[in-house]
């Protein structure tokens, strides 16, 4: 079973490489190197902070676009090309197919995030090498701060949640609608805390409960964002990262399970 899932995942990864998805890494590298040169002229000594902000924000944007635009096509493309018929007659179950698809994109995202993190450290290292005084000037956090990895780790888990949502929509909807739904949930996911306190601003108790229910059902994406805290050198505890990662993995698992459920009930005759 694991071998089949790995095979599907490997093919998703291979396809994304073939589709030149990893080209975004070149764009990222150019952006970082260009910015590291330009930012110094504009920011009154805040180069390191801004490079870190830019690196994390760019990783987040690139990752989000990959998760959404590749994620929404994962299943839909197979159905549209009718290649799903060839696949399903082979010794592969629908759940293996969905899990493999999810893990394939997760691998693509992992490679992306890992290379982006390495590129950011390389640019920071280069800046430090060219301007040794930066080490003393960066009073909030070290230039090559290992805590940045925490931000990248949580960003990756957030992208897994987004991928699982995109995959879920991909099992029953076209790419345009799936992308719209996923982006919609991404936005809602950042405003989720408002739903938790909805009862405080509405008179109707039922509306308050509904808000609370939605708070738990919809993905809560804001806690994955520790970019600002890490850049300012504020401690992000291991327990916070562990709990948030746990939430993300469980939520993504739930969405993959729902995707399997929907896909299993689809009639391809």
């Amino acid at each position: 079973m694991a071998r089949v899932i790995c095979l599907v995942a490997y093919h998703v990864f291979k396809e994304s490489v073939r589709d030149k998805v990893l080209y975004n890494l070149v764009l990222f590298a150019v952006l970082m190197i260009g910015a590291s040169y330009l930012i110094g002229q504009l920011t009154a000594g805040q180069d390191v902070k801004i490079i870190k902000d830019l690196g994390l924000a760019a990783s987040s944007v690139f990752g989000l676009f990959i998760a959404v635009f590749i994620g929404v096509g994962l299943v839909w493309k197979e159905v549209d090309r009718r290649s799903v018929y060839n696949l399903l007659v082979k010794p592969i179950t629908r759940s293996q197919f969905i899990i493999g698809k999810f893990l394939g994109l997760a691998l693509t995202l992992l490679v992306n995030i890992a290379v982006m993190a390495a590129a950011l450290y390389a640019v920071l290292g280069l800046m430090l090498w060219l301007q040794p005084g930066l080490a003393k000037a960066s009073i909030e956090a070290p230039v090559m701060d290992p805590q940045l990895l925490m931000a990248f780790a949580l960003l990756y888990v957030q992208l897994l949640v987004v991928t699982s949502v995109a995959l879920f929509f991909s099992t029953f909807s076209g790419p345009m609608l799936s992308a719209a739904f996923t982006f919609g949930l991404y936005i809602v996911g950042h405003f989720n805390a408002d739903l938790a306190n909805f009862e405080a601003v509405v008179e109707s108790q039922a509306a308050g409960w509904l808000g609370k229910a939605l708070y738990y059902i919809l993905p809560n994406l804001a806690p994955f964002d520790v970019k600002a805290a890490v850049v300012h050198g504020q401690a992000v505890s291991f327990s916070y990262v562990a709990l948030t990662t746990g939430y993300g993995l469980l939520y993504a698992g739930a969405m993959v399970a729902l995707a399997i459920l929907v896909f299993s009930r689809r009639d391809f005759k």
Partner: protein
Amino acid sequence: MEALAARVRKGGDGALTLLAAAALLLGSALALQAYREARHPLPLASSDVLYFRGGAAVSRAALGFDAILADVYWIRAIQHFGGTRRAQESDKTYKLLYPLLDLTTTLDPHFNIAYRFGALFLSEPHPAGPGRADLAVSLLERGLAADPTRWQYAQDAGFVHYWFRQDYKAAAEWYFRASRIDGAPWWLHSMAASTLAEGGDRQSSRQMWRQLYETTEDTWVRNNAQLKLGQLDALDEIDALAAVVQRFAQTRGRPPGDWSELVALRWLTGIPLDPSGTPYELRPDTPGGVALSQKSSLHPLPPQFLKKAGPTT
């Protein structure tokens, strides 16, 4: 290029024609655009556009990209301050400076430098800045609310009161407040005491700038402190030169026409230069008869330390 040429050859003449057509069309489009812009000039880009005014609303709409947006607004604040400061027009309002700093610090409440530089930018008297020390203090108070352990914000607020408002009582209160924050250096307490006792005198001001110069990690703050120390030295030198000029006026019944008269008398060893290396000027219309050149990088000198006596006779 070789790969491209090979690909073009592979595609045959048709591909080459298409490539040439694309280049021709693009070139024509660019030429047409240049012609249109020559006949119908583009409206000048206004630097006054703020995009958003409500920091809290922008923060909510940022979807986790608050920090990078704060960076964008910080860069705009620097550009606005620097651009307005260098502009030639006399009516410099710096009207976007506070809104831009407000947006920056609302989006990123821990943006340390935005509070510290922002307060200095806001406090600078007109025309070098908007002269809004009140807004500078309120910005620093917001910084302290976001991060109550940052004694530097309280120190900066004391500094703004001391230097820009000459309110030595308020300055001393802020220095005391800063000294009570955990991790604050010992000298803040003595600075508070000396501010209260000798506020406004050059020696205590020099001590304050020297502390800032020696403790800051930031190049801009250090350069600014160095500039102010140079200005204080220049003020002392102007006083000494004014005494020489006064003696000359008393013995000759007229002020000296130029420095060479004093050099010839060996009262001076040469043409006196300010700490930036620019010669001082003999100006009978100024108190003491000696002034800093407007070409000096130290110009203008802090007004609170300038003598207000009438012109030399």
